[in-house]
């Protein structure tokens, strides 16, 4: 089985790679369209800023490649956000795979970015198999996806938002499974088995 981690100008690629190695998988890190398209699973990581990441994907024509993928795809953090319709971060038009819009946490008393361990609930799909309701995952983000039809997990930070999304072969998680201890490891194992 070939697992590709999509290489672009965003952080945490190495962390995701190490997390896969811990569960016995040697991922291929690449931005080569052919390798991406022929992979069994694709992971779309991301820590960074939305507009510069989208610009980079467009320059490399990776935006079209991602949209056309047929195998299971997992977006992580910014990766998930870029799979949504748009983001308030840099007024960015994103890939439009999920219907959600990405908004800024902007309640006055709220600490932003949200940094730390928060719970996930109303879990759906096999991505969360063996992960219990109210399990903690590690989050670092200033922007969030609204709730909607694609929501398969929710988290509360002054408001309920989508901490995971799903549509057809596309999955996205706002938290960092690669940094979320055994609960995150279970999620990565589930994704590999999809």
């Amino acid at each position: 089985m070939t697992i590709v981690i999509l290489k672009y100008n965003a952080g945490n690629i190495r962390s995701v790679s190490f997390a896969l190695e811990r569960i016995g998988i040697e991922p291929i890190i690449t931005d080569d369209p052919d390798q991406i398209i022929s992979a069994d699973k694709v992971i779309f990581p991301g820590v960074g800023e939305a507009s510069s990441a989208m610009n980079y994907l467009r320059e490399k024509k990776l935006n079209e490649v991602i949209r056309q993928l047929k195998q299971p795809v997992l977006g992580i953090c910014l990766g998930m956000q870029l799979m949504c319709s748009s983001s308030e971060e840099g007024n960015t038009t994103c890939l439009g795979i999920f219907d959600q819009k990405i908004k800024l946490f902007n309640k006055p008393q709220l600490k932003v970015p949200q940094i730390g361990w928060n719970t996930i609930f109303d879990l759906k799909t096999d991505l969360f198999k063996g992960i219990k309701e109210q399990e903690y995952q590690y989050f670092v983000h200033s922007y969030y996806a609204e709730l909607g039809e694609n929501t398969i997990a929710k988290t509360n930070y002054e408001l309920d938002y989508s901490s995971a999304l799903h549509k057809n072969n596309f999955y996205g998680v706002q938290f960092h499974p690669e940094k979320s201890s055994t609960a995150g490891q279970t999620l990565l194992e589930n994704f590999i088995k999809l």
Partner: protein
Amino acid sequence: MLAKRIIPCLDIKDGRTVKGINFENIRDAGDPVELAIRYAQEGADELVFLDITATNEKRRTLAELVTKIAKQINIPFTVGGGINSIEDVTTLLNAGADKISINSAAIKDPELIKKLADQFGSQCIVLAIDTKFENNDWWVYLNGGRVKTELLALNWSKQAVKLGAGEILLTSMNNDGTKSGFAIDITKQISEAVNVPVIASGGAGKMEHFKEVFTAGKADAALAASVFHFDEIKILELKKYLSSKSIPIRL
């Protein structure tokens, strides 16, 4: 609900974990990778590694250690100590660190915070502040607590957050190593004045101290070293205790 974080800190010298009292009397406290794995298994929410002898020659060794740690542990970690350039930060983040902390270099050149935040994002830039209560105020110290500055901790925190610091790691030099509790008043003042998380550090001796710093001190996270290194407080017991006191904790 977002949980309060328990963060063991590992001071690193020549690749070993060490622990001093009031920044002095350094003792050996074990292999950092082994300790890191143990803490992650015991329920630590995050780890901080501070290289207390960081020099240019040591930077490469530190980056290698960071990669070893990143391969082995499945929770986030921050690396700090002597970081003073964009190159240092690039090296450590590429090696696998999730965040870096800066201290003296930011005091000498506050614009460095902005440059780092613009390039890497605020979420991975932690501003570490060593502060000491003297003449009725909390003063900022640099160079590992050896040199006093003209900055007040509260003002410096606010300025740093405006420049792009994503978290404040606040160490009270009066409390560090005393095991008599965290500096509640300055932690609360800063936590209420800035809209980024504040990690309280220095003075942990009993489980009650953690409860106090999360409630009265309004800290988002609490950092400690020797109570964990020398097994005086077990992380899991501490987290169960805090949870029983209705503090949101990941168990």
